[in-house]
């Protein structure tokens, strides 16, 4: 089933090539001339666009653990077709984030230090460990797909044997570091603006990553099923949309309640640099998509879902960038705007990510194989086994 109404990305190849080339040149400049000459980072603003990108990448890659947990731990088997795309997204996302982190370090040659020199009091240390371990877990979860293609089966058996603890470990690691990215800012109550600083940061980061991760899966399924068989039935996608709506609602309540209890609500009564940024984030990423997703017609329409999930992702980007940049600016005396080199490195790496994704999708059995695989009984999609809450609606709709 082709989806015609979605915007088509034409001329993707030349654009990607240009971006990757520009990014490579920018990266060479960064390593030759140092951070000072090539970025707008400073003592007042030691973290900038790249950290924001890391937040974003990790948050969007949250699809990896949410879907794996839903399908393999909660046995919502009807979502099996999106497990592989979700793992692939997460795997690429994490590799890129690690790459950006290393480029961002003042001493990239020392990047391995956190693995041997521990500081258990440091959130950064915990994050480094989680990133490393979880990327390993993801590569093990991903390895069978490559091995299958190469017809090497013995390691698959081996990986299969440890798959349950592996998946549980992966979900736990994700829970930890998704929230830890928020914990990074717990220590700067004097710097981060009251609209974003809260002891609840880790909780909020965790909730929002679920919404954005699942949105990413929907977006992917919509974009990639253009021109090929739709691998995710509409009722299942509508059901995922409900999960997003609920997550957004929970987020909204926690966020507003937190502003109330901290007495920070008055920051919103006047339009300032900060309150505008806050409203933009909350409206675009949470309120509007929530309202949209309440409507059944939108949940079952591709275009509607495309709009709503795109809004979630954009609003999520706003949220992370606001936490990492806007909230730390001292407007108007001290602001930060990324340099061209910072931007090009980020765009280049994003282009690498998209290209890698489309390349792998073309050459490895990410979508088709699972749908065709005999491992999955037909009832799984038709909705007969009725595992738990995740699947109820999808199953019913499909069978009726």
């Amino acid at each position: 089933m082709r989806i015609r109404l979605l915007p088509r990305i034409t001329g993707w190849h030349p654009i990607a090539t240009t971006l990757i080339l520009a990014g490579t040149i920018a990266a060479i400049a960064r390593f030759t001339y140092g951070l000072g000459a090539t970025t707008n980072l400073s003592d007042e603003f030691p973290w900038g666009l790249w950290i924001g990108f890391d937040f974003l990448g990790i948050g969007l890659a949250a699809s990896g653990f949410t879907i794996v947990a839903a399908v393999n731990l909660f046995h919502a088997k009807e979502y099996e077709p999106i497990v592989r795309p979700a793992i692939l997204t997460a795997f690429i996302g994490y590799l890129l984030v690690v790459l950006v982190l290393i480029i961002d370090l003042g001493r990239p040659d020392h990047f391995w230090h956190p693995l041997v020199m521990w500081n258990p009091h440091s959130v950064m240390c915990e994050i480094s460990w989680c990133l490393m371990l979880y990327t390993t877990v993801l590569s093990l979860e991903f390895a069978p797909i490559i091995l299958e293609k190469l017809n090497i089966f013995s390691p698959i058996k081996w990986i299969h044997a440890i798959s349950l603890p592996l998946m549980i470990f992966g979900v736990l690691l994700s829970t930890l570091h998704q929230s830890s990215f928020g914990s990074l800012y717990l220590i700067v109550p004097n710097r981060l603006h009251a609209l974003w600083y809260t002891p609840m940061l880790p909780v909020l980061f965790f909730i929002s990553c679920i919404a954005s991760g699942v949105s990413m899966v929907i977006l992917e399924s919509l974009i990639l099923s253009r021109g090929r068989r739709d691998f995710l039935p509409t009722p299942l996608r509508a059901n995922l949309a409900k999960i997003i709506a609920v997550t957004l609602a929970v987020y909204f309540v926690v966020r507003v309640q937190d502003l109330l209890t901290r007495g920070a609500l008055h920051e919103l009564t006047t339009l300032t640099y900060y309150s505008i940024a806050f409203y933009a984030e909350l409206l675009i990423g949470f309120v509007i998509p929530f309202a949209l997703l309440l409507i059944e017609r939108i949940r079952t329409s591709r275009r509607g879902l495309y709009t709503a999930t795109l809004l979630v992702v954009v609003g999520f980007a706003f949220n992370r960038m606001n936490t990492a940049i806007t909230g730390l600016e001292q407007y108007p005396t001290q602001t930060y705007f990324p340099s061209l080199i910072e931007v090009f490195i980020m765009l280049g790496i994003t282009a690498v990510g998209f290209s890698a994704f489309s390349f792998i999708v073309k050459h490895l059995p990410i979508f088709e194989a699972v749908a065709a695989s005999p491992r999955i009984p037909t009832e799984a999609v038709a909705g007969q086994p009725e595992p738990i809450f995740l699947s109820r609606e999808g199953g019913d709709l499909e069978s009726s």
Partner: protein
Amino acid sequence: MSQKKAMLIDLTLCVGCNACQGACKEENRLPPNEEKYLSLTAYTALSKYNDLYIRRMCQHCEVPTCVSVCPVGALSKLEAGPVAYDGEKCIGCRYCLQACPFHVPKYEWSSTKPRIQKCKFCASRLAKGLQPACAEACPTGATMFGDRDELLVEAARRINAEPAKFVPRIYGKDDVGGTSMFYISPVPFEQLGFDSRLGKTPMPMLTMSALSKVPNVLSVGGVMLGGIWWITNRRSEVQAHEAALKKGEAYQREDNP
């Protein structure tokens, strides 16, 4: 155990001669130009508020934020008080710049092998039993070096002796959990550019409340997820079994019409 050292900075005695900065620059082999702000080449600097001069420098906190955030332990709190830095360990994540409540560490942005720079509390001089270069150079005794507890007594004595001259507060006594630099002042500290929002709890506590939950998340979460897997797995097994039974019945019915 060696005594914890500290410095007492009496703002009423400072005449703004900048001798401390000069001596510090000489001791640390930094370019001798006079500087108004902390920088890579100025570990201490004087800022002027009306007719008062305030010496800024690393506070050498008792529970230092920078030490707690550094992922590789490049920063460490020495027993004698100084917060020391090891450039060989540092990965350049700049979390310390971001987190230090006093905006102290500065980064060598223009270098391709950058390091952090900040006041060292003359750790190597302290180890030799000498006092910091800046304290030695101070002509008026505005910067006074000594044992931490003795200096606290001295600061309180000065305030009590002339209550009209000082505001009743020793800045650094327990701000952010206490520091190694004490200030006493004739005007409220908020008017002198000191951050009054920092409070008495050491900043690292804010992070500890989140980090201390890590083991719980791992253990409780692990058991819970395993349990959910077991329960839901059992359910689909039962369903599969029932489905098989039904099919069986259907066949039987077909067999015996």
